[in-house]
Each structure stands twice: as structure tokens, then as C-alpha cells.
């Protein structure tokens, strides 16, 4: 949070939705884009390399997927806030979703307000 703004890493295998998330980050003054990744593995390597405050991550991706990546990040970097996003409701997702320590948000509820409120809750 060097410039007083939280740096956000966007993780999704679909480029179109990464573009949308970029738009959301761009209109929120308290956030700046740290980078983008297309898989859980890639996200982990980005977080290892550079400081990231918040990760917006899709649940269903090729490779280890969002939940395992979130679990890994929470263990190795407990101060990074991870928000898992999915087009499916929480009950239709694997049980690990609730125990991996990440926030969950349904994709179609997401937007600038949601991003700010999630951040406020975790880092008041």
C-alpha cells in the first residue's frame, strides 16, 4: 500500500472477465492494479514476486483452481486478502470454499461498491 492505494491482482482464465475486473479496479480510487494472472499457479508466482494486498480470483480455472490457490496464499501470505468469485452460488461449490479462509462473492453481485465494502470489512 505504498501510494496509500491497495494493489489488486486479478486472476481469471477468461480474458473478457479480466477486462471487466480491470474496469472495476480502475473506477475505485482506493485501488490500483498490481497485475493479472490466468491460473492459480500463475497467481501464486505473482504474489511471491511482488507485494499484493488483494487478490480477486475465479473459482473454476484450469490447473489447481481458485480454492487450492486461495488456500495456499492464505497460508503463505496471511495478510493478503483473497476474494473468490464464481458464477455459481456458494452451495454449488466444493466444501473447501468455506474453510480456505477466503471471502466469497458471486460474480453477478460484484462491482466497485462490493470491492470497497469487502476491503473495508477486512482492513477497516
Amino acid at each position, binding site marked *: 500500500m505504498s501510494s496509500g492505494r491497495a494493489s489488486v491482482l486479478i486472476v481469471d482464465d477468461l480474458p473478457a472477465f479480466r477486462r471487466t475486473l480491470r474496469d472495476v479496479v480502475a473506477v475505485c480510487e482506493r485501488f490500483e492494479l498490481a497485475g493479472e494472472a490466468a491460473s492459480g499457479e500463475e497467481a501464486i508466482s505473482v504474489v511471491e514476486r511482488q507485494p499484493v494486498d488483494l487478490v480477486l480470483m475465479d473459482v473454476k480455472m484450469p490447473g489447481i483452481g481458485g480454492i487450492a490457490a486461495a488456500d495456499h496464499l492464505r497460508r503463505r501470505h496471511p495478510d493478503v486478502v483473497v476474494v473468490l468469485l464464481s458464477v455459481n452460488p456458494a452451495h454449488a461449490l466444493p466444501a473447501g470454499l468455506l474453510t480456505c479462509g477466503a471471502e466469497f462473492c458471486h460474480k453477478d*453481485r460484484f462491482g466497485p461498491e462490493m470491492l470497497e465494502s469487502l476491503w473495508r470489512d477486512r482492513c477497516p
Partner: protein
Amino acid sequence: MARPLPVAATGSPPRAPWTEPTGVRTFIRLNLAALVIAAAVLGAVRLWLVPSHWIDLLLLAFLAVGVCLARAHALVDADRPVAAVVLVAAANWAIAVAATAIAPSAFNVLPLILLLPSLLAVPYMNRVWLAALNAATIVVTGVVAALGRLSPGVGIEAMTPGWVLDALTVSFVPIGAGMASYLAWKDHSAMTAKARDLERSRRRLVAATDGERRRIARSLREGPERQLTEAFEQIQLLRTGRPANPTQLLGALTAQLQDANAELRELTHGIYPAQLTEHGIEQALRTAARLCSVPTTVKATGLTRYPPEVEATVYFCCLRALQDAEAREATSAVIDLTDDGQLVFKAPAPPPAALAADAQGNLYMDLADRVYAVGGILRLHVEADGGLRLHGRIPRTALHPERTGNANGWWEPGVTSLARLWFFFARQWDRAGRNDGAEPSVSTGIRALVAAAAGSLPLIAAVSVVVPDAWLLVLAASTAVVWLLLRRVLRAAHRLPDRTAVLAAATVFCGYVLVVTLLIPITASCAPTMMVIPVILAVPYLPHRRFLVTMAATIAAVTVAVVAGRLPGVGLQEQAPEWFADLAIIELAVLNSTLALFFAWENQVGMSALTRGLHESARRIVAATERERQRIERDLHDGAQQRIVAAAVETRVAQRLLAGQPEPAYETLRRLSEHVADARAELRDLAHGIYPSQLARRGLAEALDDAAKRAPTRATVSATDLSRHPPLIELSVYFCCLEALQNAAKHAGEAASVTITLTDLDGLTFDVRDTGLGCDPATLRGGHGLTNMQDRLTAVGGTLAVHTAPGAGVHVHGHVPMVDEDGRLPSAIGRG
């Protein structure tokens, strides 16, 4: 106690007559009755004629057999007909051996009776079991014949008046002949019924699949696609109209996109829940149970992963049961899933009132068809507490087809030495009778009879060395005449109707047996089996009335032969040495029983090849349907759904931007409109691919014309004055042409063009020809495309042929015959 689904008394259920082992039950009762009569006769003989303790012993053995038969009856009720048949067979074998050892003249009655369990087993056993049972029957027949001829007995026959023994033989043998003919007939009827039922079930399966497609396509068009169209109009208004309250409009838009997504999500979940693919039946059902308004318990024991078509079938069966429980506001529901080798699932059944109202028997028929197609069975089951439950069972062979091989193929059992011996016999038998896929042919059977007659000639020549008698010349001459007559019938077989040929052969053969019995009365013990052989051969070709006449004639002929066996004969047998006569009779008994069982086996193999083909095709249809549903689910999830949620997020971004900097907001609105337009186009294409709406409205030619325009290859459709056909047929032909078109696009090469020709001639004919590279016909096998086409078309009674050669393009030719006056589709199964 299980019964077919739904309750049999409430109308015509999707009944599977062959799965109800009524034949076994009737036979066991008849067997018990015969046993009681035999015991009564024996008791009378014991009381008034032969006071011997050996008869007491025999009566005790009868009692033991009676207990075994009662146990077998219980096994039938417990749904284990194969075990019941084996028990009946073992009990009959034991009593036959015991009776012959005590009284060797019992051999006169027994060879035919020993055949009965094997004939009884035909519709219930697979090839392995049947082959093993046949082999064992032949061995036991040999043992009984050897005892009958060689054993001196215990001397009770010497105490019995001759007329009693004669009366017993003359009365019991025709009964055995009647039962053997009847069982052979029932076997064939049961297997024909099974094949017909499978054919109908497969057709319903295809129709249900089409109904489902129509429903999915309509839901997509009327739900999310319509909402997206409205959303798109609003976005255009925002972009060009500069409305006064853009924030409010954007808020409404967000809500609408959320609604569209929720609707799409529900639809996607209904098409194929993603959880089923990822985590299997148990997890998917637990989620379904959580979402259900009825408190539901899911109990699962020993479940693993299964082929997708099995998982989807079990899942959708349980889901339907849950949805119905929800609709009738049940207070609670329990779903039980157990895998202990076979997968058993139990779900709530509809209340009796609903079943009673279902006069057509349509309730759950589609599910029963699906379960049946994957190799299982779905029934209503009366539980211990008296309540009804939906009860599905999928056997091991259907759960892990790759591990157990084909259900009808060879399966290596555990290696106990008894099992080894059993399966050794089975394998030998199967090797001798291998006739893969071919329907039983009348010529094969007549050829076997010709061979039997021809084989007798050298035998008679050999006998003439031992017994030089003029009567042997008469025997040789009549054998030669029979041989010539049978050969004539064989030559004429392709011209004559099957039933005429087979009845002519049967008459000649029975006449021959009668002549032999008159000349050599000791062969009378073998005559009944010989006379039943042609009936078993004839059964598949006879209509019911003619069969009854044939059966009556056979019983009469057998009676005459048995009476002839009591006559003195011409003195031939007295001249032969004792050992020679014994050997000849034992050999004849074994050969006869082999021949009789071989014909029953031939019928079974032919029919089971037919039903196996139908079964595999039905399973492939279910598998293809599930693959398609999975694909639709994936396409929706990765395509339209992602675009809609992206659009919803963009509306919120736009809302924030509009508050401050309007210029970037227009860029966001442009992207938003792109997302919505893309999502709508994807939905429209997907719905069209699932079910082309113009097919029903404007017919096959126009729908295919439209598909040809979209195809990447140049394609033309020609059809003149094409009339309309039933939707099932039109859709099948449409998908086959589409598949052929796609294949051409993939394999024919860029320069190729395709012509589709549709003709109305005795039904509907289509020809898809491409001018492409073609290929070696041998490489056509494999792959889902062609098999799918074949399955779909044969399910509606049609045929498909593919002609190709390297450089000559590919020509796909399909034909569906006309439906008859009652609107019934043609069937491939008939009785001569």
C-alpha cells in the same frame, strides 16, 4: 417382493415380461405336481405290489427334492431366477441318478425330463451359464443312460408286474415331450418379447430425448434470450438517447441482468449439474437435497465413480422423485444409495392414488427406459413397512463394463476347482456353438438333421458286421430315403417359407425315428428326445396356432413311439451282443440330448445377439445424450453466463463513472452492449443447435437448407414435393444429414462440395454426397459420429449405409420406411 413399474393392476405399465420369471415359477409348480403324482404312484406300488424298503428310500429322496423345489420357488420370489433354475436342475439330476440306480428302467422316461431345466433356463441365463448348464445336462444324461443300461438295479423291477412299468412309461413320456415343446416355445416367446420391448423402449428413449431438447431450446429462447434482448434495447437507449435518469436505468439493467443470469443458472443446472461431472452422484444429490423444500436425507454407502451415463441416469431418477415429493408437499424424503457390487438406489415413490390415476402407465416410463438402457431396472418395490418406494438396480456388468467385459461374454470367475470344471464345460460348449450375431437359420438346423441321418449309415454298416441280418437292409434303405428327403427339403429351403421347410423336415425325421423304434424297440428310450429335437428347431418359425398343432402331433408321435417300443420288434436287437446294445443306447442318449440342447442354444444365441445389439445401441443413445447435455452445460457456463455476469459488473462500473466522468462511461457502455449482444447470439446459436425451430414449422428441406447455408463447406439441398413425416423421423433425418455435413466439413477437404438429396419413396430417403477426398472404408469404424447416426436411425426403424473409397468422396445413404396405418414405426423383429 418386487413388481414392475408402475403397479401392474393400474393399466399397461412399461412392463418387462421377460424380467418377471413367471416361466420359472410355473415350471416349478408343474415339477412339484409331477413329483406328487410320481410319489403317489410309487406309494401305491409300494403298498400293493412291491413291498421294498428301496421304494421308501426313493420316496424320501422325493421329499428332499420337494424341499429343494420349494426353496427354488422362494428364490424366484427373491428375484433370483438363475439360482432357482440351477437348484431345480440340481435336484432333478440328483433324483434322476438315484431313481435310475435303484430302478434302471426309469431310464426309459428320464432323458427328456433331464432336458427340461436347460430349456427352462434359456431366457434367463447368459451364454456362460447356459453353456455350463447344457454341458452338465449332457454329462448327467450320459450317467443316467449308463446306469440304465449297465446297472443291475436292486431287483425291485423283477418284483413289479410288466404292465405297471409299461403304463408308467407310456403315461410319463408324452407329458415330458409336451413340456419340452412348450418350454422351447415359451423361451422363444419370452426372448422375442424382450427384443420387441427393447426396441420400443429405445424408440421412447429417442422420443424423450427429442422432447427434452425441445424443452431446453424453448426455455433458452423464452427465458434468458428474451431478457437479454430487452436489456440490449435499454443499453442502446442509454448510449444514443442520452436519457435524463441514466443511473436509475442502469440500476434496473443490473437487476435485469442478474435475473437473466439466475434463470440461466437454474436452466444450466437442470441440464447437467456441474457437480455431477466433478464430484459424482452423492455430492450432486446432497446439493439437490439441500435445495429441496422437503427435508431430505441422503444415505450413501460404498459409492465410487461410474460411467457418465450411469451417474446421470441415477441422478436424474432420484431428482425426479424428489421434485415429485416436493410437488405433493411430502413431509420428508429419504434417498438410499448402496454399492455392494451392484448399485441399488431407492427414492420416494408417488402415492398409490397417483399410480392408480396413471392408466396409461406413463409415470416414470422415461426414467425406466433410461435405467433399462444403461443395463439396470427400475421398479416399484414394497418395503418391509408396507410403503412403496422407487427401486433402481444397476448390476456390476453395467457399472464397470470395461472391467467385466460384455455381460454376455466370458467372465473369469474365482478359481475354485468346481468353478473351473464348470466353466471348462461351458467354454467347450460355447466353442462348438459359436454363431456370433447370426439369426438362427432354418438351413443350419435342417443340415444338422441331414448330418444325423447321414451319420447313421456308416453306423448301420458297422452294425451289419456284428449282426448280419436282412432287416438291417430295410433300416439302411429307410435311412437313405430319409437322408435324400431331408436333402431335398434343404435344397428347397430357400424357396419355401421357413415354417414349411422346417415342418417338412420335422415330419420326415419323426417318421424315421418311428421306423427305427419299430425295428429296434430298445431305442424307444431315446425316441422321445429325438422327436422333440425338430420341434425345438421349428419354434422360432411357427406362429402360435401352428405351434399348438405341432406340439399335439409331437405328443401323439412320441406316444406311438413309446408303444412301439413295447412291441417285440423284428429280432434285430436279440442278435446283437449285450455290450454293443448298451454302448449304442448310451451314445444315442448323449447325442440326442446334445442335439436338442444345441438347437435351443442356437435360438438363444441368435436372439441374444439381437437383444444385445439393441441394448448396446440404447446405452450409446443415453451416453450420447449425456455427453451432449454436458457440452451444453459447459458452453453455457463458459460462454453466455460469463458474458452476462461481466455485463452486470460493467453496469455498476458505468453507474459509478456516470456520476463523475461521462466520457469513459460511454466506452464502458459500448463494452456492456457488446457483452449482452454476444451472450444473446451465443444463446441463440446454442438453442438452434439443440433444436432447430424451423424444422417443426417449415419442414425438413428448409431446415436443412438453412443448415447448409451456415456450413463452412459449399452445400446444396434438393428436395421436390417432400411431404411431412412424424417429428421423430424428421428430426432423426435432420441430425443424420447435419452430422454427415459436419463430417464432410471436417474430412472432405476445402475444395469439396456437398449435395443433400431428400426423396419421398416408400418412406423417407436421404443421400448426402461430397466430392471430397473419400477414405478407405475400413477406417470408418470407431468415433461417435457414424455410430450416433446409426443408432438414431435404427431407433426409428430406418437403415444407414456409407459408401466411400479413396478419391471417390463419401456417400451417406439413409432410409426410413413408411409408418403403417396406425402410425406405428416399422419393427425389425418378427416371428416367421
